[in-house]
């Protein structure tokens, strides 16, 4: 025990310690390894948050399939729980019997330009216009974690004009 203590006090050890500690401190400062385990959480409110405004829940860009389609599809929710779909910067080609639908992004039918048979979908209504901003009410019960894609669909020819995969806002 006394041997160990005298060794620790020997000059060489002090030299090593004098060199080693700054190196360790520098390495710690550079890499901050403790940050691998320590998380810093923040939760700032939106700077303009007004609880009476509808909040966007999901959004996605429309991509054209059978016809060139562009724009953004977003789902908003009002404080009373009502949800609606809003299309912005929207443009598609005009056509007969166009509808706005919600469908499942993993549905194989959506990968093709034309759907064989029926598309498993939720109807939101006839497309009001092939250009411009427009809103569609969502049925209260629709499960958006399941029906996570907006589809511009031509019922007559079963043509998928455009699809937007919705992502959490």
């Amino acid at each position, binding site marked *: 025990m006394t041997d160990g203590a005298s060794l620790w006090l020997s000059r060489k050890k002090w030299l090593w310690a004098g060199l080693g500690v700054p190196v360790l401190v520098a390495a710690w400062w550079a890499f901050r390894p403790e940050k691998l385990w320590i998380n810093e959480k923040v939760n700032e409110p939106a700077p*303009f948050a007004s609880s009476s405004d509808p909040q966007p829940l999901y959004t996605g860009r429309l991509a054209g399939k059978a016809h060139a389609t562009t724009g953004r599809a977003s789902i908003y929710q009002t404080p009373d729980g009502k949800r609606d779909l809003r299309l912005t910067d929207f443009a598609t080609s005009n056509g007969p019997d166009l509808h706005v639908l919600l469908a499942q992004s993993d549905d194989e039918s959506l990968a093709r330009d034309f759907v064989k048979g029926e598309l498993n979908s939720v109807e939101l209504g006839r497309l009001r216009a*092939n250009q411009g901003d427009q809103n569609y009410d969502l049925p209260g019960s629709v499960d958006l974690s399941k029906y996570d894609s907006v589809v511009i669909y031509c019922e007559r020819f079963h043509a998928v004009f455009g699809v937007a995969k919705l992502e959490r*806002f």
Partner: protein
Amino acid sequence: MMVRKIKFAMALAALTVALGLRVSVYAQDNMKHENGAKTLATGTFHGKVHQTSGRATIYKEEDGKLVLRLTNFKTSNGPDVHVILIAAGDADDNANFLKSNTERVELGKLKGNEGDQNYEIPAGTDLAKYRTVSVYCERFDANFGAAPLEKF
């Protein structure tokens, strides 16, 4: 002869109406409850080396101030991590903006590696030029994650 011409013209008109494919209909629904701030652009983060996810959105407040807001945000914690806007359409996980001389706008030190947070964007920043958000470790010039922004 004249009757035939008129008939032809009428048939042509009917055909045009029937096809109707070239006719555009324009809608202009208003946002039902427009609040003060306007959402300009949004995008989602990607980053695999340092798992980064969430959404970056740029708002314009009523007084014209630009704000970047991160939501559902998560990245790995690290030393000297900053939020920057870069003059590029997107950035790879291993992008080194120092080496590639990418122009950037500093928005400040990352406030937290998890959670919702806001950053002020300096007045006069050209958002048509700086269109990607990067979470960037200054010390090691490492891009933790990038979010390419698209018009909202």
